[in-house]
């Protein structure tokens, strides 16, 4: 950040700045995609208008919803394990906020530059399983328990394809550092032609496919929405939650969807980079120019919207899997495919 403002910030100053930005980076895109995709796009797909009353084209609908949820009574069932019940949304949101920590938005515009960035992201993303299991267990409701257990079974089954799909990218980039992965894609060449860089969806399209399927399952979006399955389990592990606690699960789900889309954009679509020949035309320094700290977030947002579009498109197109089909799909198709992908990537990396 210092390159933009040409002043050095103290640690506490930059930290407060980062915390404010994290708040924005998690909640604003979540609200935006919920309105754009969940309210509007889906309505158009289903030949209806969606929200039209609150604000122009219903654009203030989300604020109205938040206002509505804020007025709902906060109910904790008498039978529930109160402390665990209350703690569960915290755990889910902690996972979300830690996930955004490693996403790079520009050459300097990132919260933390861990050497093992993607590894950290994969680690904290699975923390939310604990929160969901806590919610399902502590509610002391049969629906919640079944939902929570389904969620746990599903999330661990799809954690593996997620991790293994990332290995292909790590092999190609030769680093676990998120910034390094972006740089490797910008500096990459396709058969000696560097004008487009080498965004890994060209070479890792199988990895991208596995990653997106696994993300869909990790987020419990349809066709993998058995943990919530409103026609079978009312609302799964969220059944007993009301008011703002319920909304926080909701926010966690969609914010995490965006951050996974950010991660997918970083790993497969070239992150905050644009095709290098355009960057070289714009600035002499190319991608090292400080302006990319401002262009980068916009580029990331564009790529994120592209990927979340696919997530919601799939969500509202395919019917729900059966529980055994879900496990079979992960263990008998995605994991072997991911292992083959790693082996082929390794061979090609060494040969070329």
């Amino acid at each position: 950040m210092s390159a933009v403002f040409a002043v050095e910030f103290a640690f506490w100053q930059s930290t407060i700045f980062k915390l404010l930005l994290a708040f924005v980076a998690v909640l604003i895109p979540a609200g935006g995609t919920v309105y754009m995709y969940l309210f509007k796009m889906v309505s158009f797909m289903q030949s209806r208008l969606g929200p039209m009353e609150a604000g122009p084209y219903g654009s203030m609908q989300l604020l109205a919803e938040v206002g509505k949820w804020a007025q709902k009574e906060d109910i904790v069932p008498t039978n529930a394990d109160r402390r665990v019940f209350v703690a569960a949304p915290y755990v889910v949101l902690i996972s979300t906020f830690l996930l955004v920590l490693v996403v790079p938005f520009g050459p300097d515009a990132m919260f933390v530059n861990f050497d093992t960035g993607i590894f950290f992201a994969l680690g904290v993303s699975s923390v939310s399983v604990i929160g969901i299991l806590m919610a399902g267990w502590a509610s002391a409701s049969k629906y919640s328990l079944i939902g929570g257990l389904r969620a746990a079974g599903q999330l661990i089954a799809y954690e593996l394809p997620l991790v293994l799909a990332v290995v292909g990218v790590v092999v190609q980039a030769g680093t676990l550092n998120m910034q390094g992965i972006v740089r490797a894609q910008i500096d990459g060449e396709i058969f000696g032609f560097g004008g487009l860089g080498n965004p890994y969806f060209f070479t890792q399209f199988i990895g991208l496919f596995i990653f997106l399927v696994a993300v869909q399952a990790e987020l419990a979006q349809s066709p993998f929405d058995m943990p919530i399955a409103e026609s079978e389990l009312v609302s799964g592990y969220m059944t007993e939650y009301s008011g703002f606690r319920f909304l926080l699960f909701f926010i966690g789900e969609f914010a995490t969807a965006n951050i996974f889309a950010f991660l997918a954009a970083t790993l497969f679509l070239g992150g905050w980079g644009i095709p290098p020949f355009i960057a070289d035309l714009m600035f002499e320094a190319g991608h090292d120019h400080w302006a990319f700290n401002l262009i980068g977030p916009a580029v990331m947002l564009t790529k994120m919207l592209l990927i979340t579009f696919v997530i919601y498109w799939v969500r509202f197109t395919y019917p729900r899997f059966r529980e055994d089909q879900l496990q079979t799909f992960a263990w008998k198709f995605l994991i072997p495919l991911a292992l083959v992908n790693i082996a082929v990537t390794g061979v090609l990396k060494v040969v070329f």
Partner: protein
Amino acid sequence: MSDFLREYLLVLLFGLLAVGVVGGFVGLASLLRPDRPTPAKLENYESGVDPTGSVWSQSQIRYYIFALLFVMFDVEAVFIFPWATRLEAFGFFGLIEMVIFIFILALGLAYAWRKGVLRWV
């Protein structure tokens, strides 16, 4: 404090930010929301009828074998990552080593498959 630890201090602070966001939202909403609990309202939801049986009922966890399998595979995935970052330095030696490793991994999966562990029980 070293830069390394400072980066992880930020992890802690982001965790606290999440706690603050949740606590803040729920706290702010408490200014708006009514609070009129009745015994019926605080009962567990069971499609609108009175709940039957104990709520802390037992349930068969069908996929605990999957969980065991997952633990093994996840640990092995951790071994793959350091190799993946250093593949260029290891060259053919590292490649052949890892192909053997992945083969053994796949063999384990094939064994579990053959044994019917991956079938829904």
